[in-house]
């Protein structure tokens, strides 16, 4: 089996809206596939189909070689799911939640208690094991939710926006847990709207927008698709920005853009950057700083989706 997760031409429509419009995805065993996209891109629908919670209108989806529609039972035996909304019983304590899952999966009472204790220790929840889940903080609830999805050590784990709404410290803690699970051999499909999260965790990334995969590859491949490197110039006086853009155009014919009072110039290689800098030096424009760097995933996303930074921020806030 080459892929633990293999999705071809997946289509799912809700009335007029095509939530998924021919999506292809693939994840090799033991790797993390990051599915990156804004709200409403179709990420959750893809996870729901892969975890047998809904069926596709067209296309195929296989998990560990099993078709998710025809062999849903076999898929359910081997996956774990942490949905976007906590899949916990709010009235049960953390320990009771984990024991219920273990019992439903066939553990004896003693085995269930033992596994619940292991997970509670591992996820740093010992101080709240007896407290009702609805009294947990956001970060604790997420950890308990993740613990509940690995009660039987799934071979494939689906995480639908696992850190949305978490503070940076809780987010980092969750990332560490995901890395541990992957080190133990679990294949993970993770959806996120945080570019940093995909960059941190994913071996390969699929960028998805309005139901279509618009780019895929390793994080560094994706950065290359935006075009080599980026030269960032910070002029001492904002009114020089127009002149700088003109110089960049003359020097290498680059389509530059303004961002946060800087001029961002895509360049194919360091030589082009040098040529631009030479022109700037001749013109005698004062700079407070400049730098040559790989494009960030933010920049990749903007280039690929055409969404402006502003609408993206609105989506992130929503």
């Amino acid at each position, binding site marked *: 089996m080459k892929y*633990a997760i293999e999705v071809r031409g997946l289509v799912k429509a809700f009335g007029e809206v095509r939530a998924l419009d021919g999506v292809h995805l693939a994840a090799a*065993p*033991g790797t993390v596939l990051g599915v990156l996209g804004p709200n409403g891109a179709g990420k959750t629908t893809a996870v729901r189909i892969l*975890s*047998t*919670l*809904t*069926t596709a209108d067209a296309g195929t989806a296989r998990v*560990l070689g099993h078709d998710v529609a025809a062999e849903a*039972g076999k898929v*359910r*035996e*081997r*996956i774990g*799911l942490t*949905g976007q*909304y*906590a*899949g*916990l*019983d*709010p*009235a*049960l304590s953390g320990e*009771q939640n984990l024991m*219920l*899952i*273990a*019992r*439903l*999966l*066939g*553990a*004896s009472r003693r*085995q269930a208690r033992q*596994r619940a204790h292991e997970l509670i220790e591992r996820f740093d929840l010992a101080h709240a094991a007896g407290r*009702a889940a609805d009294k947990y903080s956001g970060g604790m609830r997420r950890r308990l939710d993740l613990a*509940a*999805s690995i*009660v*039987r*050590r*799934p*071979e494939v784990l689906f995480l639908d926006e696992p850190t949305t709404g978490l503070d940076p410290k809780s987010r980092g803690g969750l990332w560490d847990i995901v890395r541990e699970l992957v080190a*133990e*051999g*679990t294949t993970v499909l993770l959806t996120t709207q945080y570019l940093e999260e995909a960059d941190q965790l994913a071996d390969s990334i699929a960028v998805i927008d309005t139901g279509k995969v618009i780019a895929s590859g390793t994080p560094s491949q994706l950065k290359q698709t935006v075009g080599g490197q980026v030269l960032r110039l910070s002029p001492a006086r904002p009114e020089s920005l127009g002149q700088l853009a003109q110089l960049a155009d003359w020097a290498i014919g680059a389509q530059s853009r303004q961002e946060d009072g800087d001029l961002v110039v895509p360049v194919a290689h360091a030589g082009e950057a040098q040529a631009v800098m030479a022109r700037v030096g001749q013109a005698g424009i004062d700079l407070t700083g400049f730098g040559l760097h790989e494009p960030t995933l933010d920049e990749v996303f903007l280039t690929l989706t055409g969404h402006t930074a502003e609408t993206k921020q609105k989506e992130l806030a929503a």
Partner: protein
Amino acid sequence: MTTATTTWTTTRGPLAQAASMTARSLASIRHQPAQLIEFFMIPLMILLSITFFMGGQMMGSWKDFLQYAGPTIIAMGLFFAITATGLGLYGDIKEGVFDRLTAMPVSRFALLAGRIAADMVKHTWALLVVGGVAFAIGYRSDGGVLGTAGAALALLLFLFAASWTMALVGLTAKSEEQIQTWMISLLMPLAYTSTIFIEKDTLPGPVQWWASANPLTALADTMRMFLSGGTPGSETLALLAWCAAILAVFVPLSLRAYRRKLTS
């Protein structure tokens, strides 16, 4: 694939899974023991208010009324309480915990039956308390221990079957208000056109026909038969037939509604 899979002997079938779900539904009582009182408040208040405030006018003395209609009014109060099954399932689905359970290799029947079994435990508790109050204020069964047990079992069997109709309501409702509306607009007319309160002969002609067919009439007549020390007859057969028919229709419909709600 190097993942170490935890192997638990999965000899636990759907019934064992349902038992786990039942325990889960009852676990919240430990966090909120006041629920133990809430379970019997509605049937208790229905019994007391109808007996004391209306009974005298209906039959001359509230004691005679209690003796005639007490047990069946308890049955009506508990019948209204089956709404809890609909509201409970609706809440479960809204919480997201059922998404996780649905993505697990767990019997769908167990998930629904577990909730209903938990509600049956609550109904049994309420029946014990309210039945005890009826005894305390003067109700006496002519059927002895066996007859009383027979009446109680008939009631619980009917509640079990009827709960599956509420499971379907809970799985298809769009809001909690909708479930309450269904309760008032279906359960109440059903209760008032049966022999729970009244004798069939006092009803107008066409309603009399319906009252004979009404499942609650079969229940009320069966309970009265047991409580008066009679032997089971056509009314008991009618009740059993109703329960079997309700289960045969509403268990598959509920399972289908579950699939539609959670996996489509």
